[in-house]
């Protein structure tokens, strides 16, 4: 048990800090549209040019191949530098890319990995369906083999930024007879393929905010060479890189939120004024508890990274995810209460209002809080199904 960092790690930290200090893009990140795509790709290109792209990717695929400790340091410094999160690059860097690294063939690696690192392409995810959410393995979008192609029919939904993406990691059913986990294939889908239509879905933040699309596939032809891993082994392929970063990127989020709480304290003091000391106000009590819980959430993330570094593979990280999600949601709600009546204004321009509304997705996306609790109950505590 220790909080030490070696001399070399400390030097690495200084190097990362200096580069981030000089290079972070300071403009406000647009919340939507082509402008957002351009912003995120530009920041990725800048990191690539500076030699900082793909901190968790192995060296042989163009990444930095950093140890978990150094990834942690990078993300800590990234958050402290208030560098923007390029969410549009998330699927490519943290899911599709690592999946191709783990299970792709030479041609797939050669084509896709450099484009991702260089900030040339955006990937999206085609996993959930209208009738396959928490029960993802019951997905029905179907693909049959026709010569060298797969022919896809069906629909995917909750595809974040699908309308801004070049490629999609797509799960399709290629064997309808097999048990539900065994008949799925993981394929690379070109979003410009004929037969794909997109229905934009506005989200709850403010009018005309398109975050998701629903994708319809109407006899969409995808070369069989775009299957990653074996045909019908797509479930295992998809699972092989879940939790790829093993918590290190979570630390970035933790530190961002810790700084947000500090900002909230200052704003609350300002709003209440000297007549009503924060320590005597209900808002103050909530802020104090939040400060403590946020520290604990970060400590849990350090535990997850420690376990990963020791090679322990289990479902303990779901404890951290549950705590982190709910603490962040509580922070966003409290921020709103600090704004008072101003919370009723400008949901697009005011980050506190915008991200409060966005925070409702935290306990839904990538496994709802309730599914997390099932996992904790069954896989961590050993309770019967």
């Amino acid at each position: 048990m220790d909080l030490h960092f070696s001399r070399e790690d400390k030097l690495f930290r200084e190097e990362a800090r200096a580069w981030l200090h000089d290079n972070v893009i300071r403009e406000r990140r647009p919340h939507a549209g082509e402008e957002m795509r351009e912003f995120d790709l530009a920041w990725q290109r800048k990191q690539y040019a500076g030699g900082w792209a793909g901190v968790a990717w192995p060296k042989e695929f163009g990444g930095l191949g950093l140890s978990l400790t150094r990834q942690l340091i990078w993300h800590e410094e990234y958050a402290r530098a208030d560098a923007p999160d390029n969410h549009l690059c998330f699927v490519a860097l943290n899911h599709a890319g690592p999946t191709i690294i783990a299970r792709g063939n030479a041609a797939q690696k050669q084509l896709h990995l450099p484009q991702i690192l260089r900030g040339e392409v955006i990937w999206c995810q085609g996993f959930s369906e209208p009738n396959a959410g928490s029960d993802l393995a019951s997905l029905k979008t179907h693909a049959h083999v026709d010569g060298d192609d797969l022919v896809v029919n069906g629909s995917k939904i909750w595809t974040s930024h699908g309308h801004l993406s070049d490629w999609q990691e797509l799960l399709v059913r290629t064997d309808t007879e097999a048990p539900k986990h065994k008949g799925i294939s993981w394929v690379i889908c070109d979003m410009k393929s004929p037969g794909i239509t997109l229905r934009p879905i506005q989200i709850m933040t403010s009018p005309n905010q398109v975050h998701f699309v629903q994708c319809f596939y109407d006899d969409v032809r995808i070369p069989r060479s775009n299957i990653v891993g074996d045909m019908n082994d797509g479930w295992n392929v998809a699972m092989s890189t879940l939790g790829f970063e093993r918590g290190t990127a979570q630390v970035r989020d933790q530190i961002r939120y810790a700084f947000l709480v500090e900002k909230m304290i200052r704003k609350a003091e300002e709003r209440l004024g000297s007549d009503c000391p924060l320590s005597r106000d209900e808002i103050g009590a909530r802020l104090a508890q939040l400060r403590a819980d946020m520290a604990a959430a970060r400590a849990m993330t350090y535990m997850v990274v420690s376990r990963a570094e020791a090679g322990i593979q289990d479902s303990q990280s779901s404890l951290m995810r549950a705590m982190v999600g709910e603490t962040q949601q509580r922070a966003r709600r409290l921020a709103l209460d600090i704004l008072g009546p101003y919370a009723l204004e400008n949901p697009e321009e005011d980050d506190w209002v915008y991200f409060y509304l966005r925070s409702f997705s935290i306990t839904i996306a990538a496994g709802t809080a309730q599914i997390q609790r099932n996992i904790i109950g069954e896989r961590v505590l050993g309770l019967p199904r």
Partner: protein
Amino acid sequence: MNFLLSDEQTQIVDTLKSFLTGQAPVARFRPPAPQIGNSDHHLWPQLAELGYLGIALSEAAGGIGLTAAEEMLAYREFGRQLLSPAVLGLTLAVHLAAYENSDLLPELLRGRMRVGLANPLGAVTLGPTCAGTFHLMDGQDAAWILACGPAGAALLRSDAFTEIVPVAATDSAVTLGRARLTAAEPRIWVASSQWPSYQRAQLLIGAYAVGMAEATRDMAVDYAKTRQQFGKPIGSFQAIKHLCADMAIRSEAALCQSIFAALVQAEALPGAEFHSTAGKLVATGAALQNAAQNIQVHGAIGFTAEADAHVYLKRGHLMEQLWGDTRQLRESMLAAEFPG
């Protein structure tokens, strides 16, 4: 950076676990046990012999030479077994005596002295002169009493306290009395600026609460696996499963924050006040909520004195009140410097 226990630390914990489960099983509070007071002080000489009383004290001072991290881990086990809270008086007295080079140290380290706790009832003065009204916890028959607050910690002779009125304790596994100090001079006074006794106390109370939160989580999970209704173990129902999952989330949050706080103290990093305060807040919250939910998962048996669930609830309240309740701690939490 590593939050996992080393092999040596695991061994320290395992030794303590097997000692405590043998000598201080939680079932010791069940009827027909008198349920009044606590005889754990009989264990102090053995705990001393095993090295746990001076675990974080330098070898030169007669300790084991380990750190706040190992002391925290020991307290997690003390909490799991609901050891008398007076052990905290002993540990802190050892630190104070070592700081002052006091001739009391050898006796304390041998576990031959009994040190009760004084917890303020309202505003009190702690310093080279102490005054105010207190609760004495497990202070009956103890020759010494330890009081602690943000300003520092004081070791007082128990006869410095007057107007002692025994009262029935909500946590019937401790003795409780009201008492008063009037311009009393402690035998040892160490200010927080000299040695951070208050932060260490918060850390250890937090660690104790971690053990409690984990113990109740484990009790609830075990019961949910064995108790059958509607032809199935009740733990297969999501209503119960999710209660157990919540208990696991809280315990893990409390444990991780206690480790964070302990390492910050052990390595003298900035943020000791911030992290130890957060540690106690999160852990006593977890201990209390888990204790309550453990009763709920047990159903009617959880409401009886025949099950151990209620003792964890009551001890949780005691720990939450000790040397700064949630209200006061939130105030310190808000004022603490953010370490970044």
